[in-house]
């Protein structure tokens, strides 16, 4: 019976299910918050996927753009009372400037320079965030001034109001990625990913293409950073700029399918569900450590069995069934 549904219908059903989540009988604020966390996680993966998956430029320090979005919004709000719906633009602008600086310097070179530069910039920003205590709160990070339920500050006591913007972001990024994969710009990015010399021979401006791809990805990431800080109300240097964060950003695409539109969505969802399930099992059966072991094992299993990500085998499976 599954066979009559196309991917699109499954997708629409999932979106509707998530959008109506607060109305569901078993739903509570823990579940809603978990879904929002998942959506933020997915959106970060989608943003990274643009430059790394579609454009083939391995950013190992994408936390920079995330952190800039989060910190710019938070600093402007706490120190000068600038509301986040203005601060978000400052975050995206800061991310864009850093992207142009990194890309401008490293994208004329080939090889590992870009990847290395992203790591170095990440570490530099983490140090800066720890050093300028007055501005950033230093090591401990800082918390947004809490206004309670506020449109001005885009804050809420309950997680629920964040569900829809987060969902809209994921759906929007999904549509954007799908468009990218067919558009001229997206084809140029993919051509550059597959072979820079061949792309040049096809008339593609390789440097400009990589730079624009990074710019788009950085701005997308910064936007999620703002959403993140509004939702969690707190940010610290490690969480913003740290390499662990940068690795987390890469996982949804790697698990779900690099360079595909559905990949980061699928990967992010599977990872959080697996994480929650193993957490639950570990506390249910009172075996501490089981969650990390099972979660790690599962990721390893996926990577070994489906090195191209889950999206490939899944779509093949759906296609193989008779219509």
């Amino acid at each position, binding site marked *: 019976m599954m066979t009559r549904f196309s991917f699109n219908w499954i997708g629409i059903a999932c979106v509707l299910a998530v959008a109506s989540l607060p109305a569901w009988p078993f739903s509570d604020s823990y579940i809603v918050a978990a879904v929002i966390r998942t959506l933020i996680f997915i959106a970060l993966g989608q943003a990274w996927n643009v430059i790394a998956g579609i454009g083939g430029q391995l950013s190992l320090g994408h936390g920079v753009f995330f952190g800039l979005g989060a910190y710019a919004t938070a600093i402007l709000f706490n120190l000068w009372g600038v509301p986040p719906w203005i601060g978000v633009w400052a975050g995206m602008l800061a991310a864009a400037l850093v992207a142009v600086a990194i890309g401008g310097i490293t994208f004329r070179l080939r090889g590992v320079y870009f990847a290395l530069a992203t790591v170095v910039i990440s570490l530099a920003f983490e140090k800066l965030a720890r050093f300028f205590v007055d501005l950033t709160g230093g090591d401990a990070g800082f918390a947004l001034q809490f206004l309670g339920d506020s449109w001005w500050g885009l804050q809420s006591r309950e997680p629920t109001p964040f569900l829809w913007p987060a969902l809209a972001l994921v759906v929007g990024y999904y549509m954007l990625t799908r468009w990218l994969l067919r558009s001229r710009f997206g084809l140029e990015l*993919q051509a550059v990913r597959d*072979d820079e*010399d*061949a792309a040049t*021979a*096809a*008339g593609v401006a*390789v440097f400009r293409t990589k730079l624009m791809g990074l710019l788009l990805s950085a701005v997308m990431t910064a936007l999620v950073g703002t959403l993140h800080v509004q939702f969690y109300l707190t940010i610290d240097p490690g969480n913003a700029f740290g390499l662990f964060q940068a690795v987390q950003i890469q996982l949804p695409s790697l698990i779900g399918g690099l360079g595909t539109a559905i990949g980061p969505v699928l990967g992010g969802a599977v990872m959080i569900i697996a994480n929650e399930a193993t957490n639950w099992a570990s506390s249910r059966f009172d075996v501490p450590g089981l969650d990390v072991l099972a979660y790690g094992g599962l990721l390893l299993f996926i990577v070994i069995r489906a090195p191209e990500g889950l999206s490939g085998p899944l779509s093949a499976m759906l296609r193989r069934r008779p219509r």
Partner: protein
Amino acid sequence: MAAFLLEVADVSKVFGGLVALKSVSFAIEEGEVVGLIGPNGAGKSTLFEVVSGGMRPTGGTIRYQGEDITNLPAHLRRRAGMSRTFQKIRLFNNLTVEQNLAVAAMQSTPAGRTWKSEVQSALIRLRLTGLVDRKPSELTLADRKKVEIGRAIVGHCRMLMLDESLSGLTRDEADDLVGEILALNRDLGVTILVVEHVMPVVMAMARRLLVLDYGTIIANGLPAEVARNPDVITAYLGTKKGAT
């Protein structure tokens, strides 16, 4: 002077202490099919890269359509109609055949035409229409070569530079591809420069040969004349200079 499509004047290229090209000069007229031959290490690939924009020459100038393009980036040369293939085929392996061509067509389709129609006519010309949705890894070597040539000629192409395109093909496949290449010249007026190190192949295609040896042009003329040229025979057999 302006009658030449490509003019290479006094071009040299030095890698560290190694002189790869030494004051190379030649010109190609619009519509010609020219072969560039020479023994291994003669500097063919270097000359090919310098002309197509992959490398900057150490000295000298390159003019295309009467304009100095010595410092023009490679992707802008392609948009100006100067295309190339690679010695080892380079395709966009995660894109379909159609998308491989579309990327190039989008960059150089002349005003008044659409890139889609350009892609379509190139696919028809090279008899690739049945393979549009395939990925390069699903194609035979001969078809991959055709896709690469398709990517080179789609959109605006006035001059096609082929780097040992026939290597690795069976006799029949090579004959087929030579036919396609000559048809491009005949039907579309595309000027062709072929680099080969196998003499018989290039003798059959080119109406004029340039012979490169130790970074200099040692012969330039009709294939039959060049084949009789004592310097060329020496360069290939290596008797007098005692090479290798």
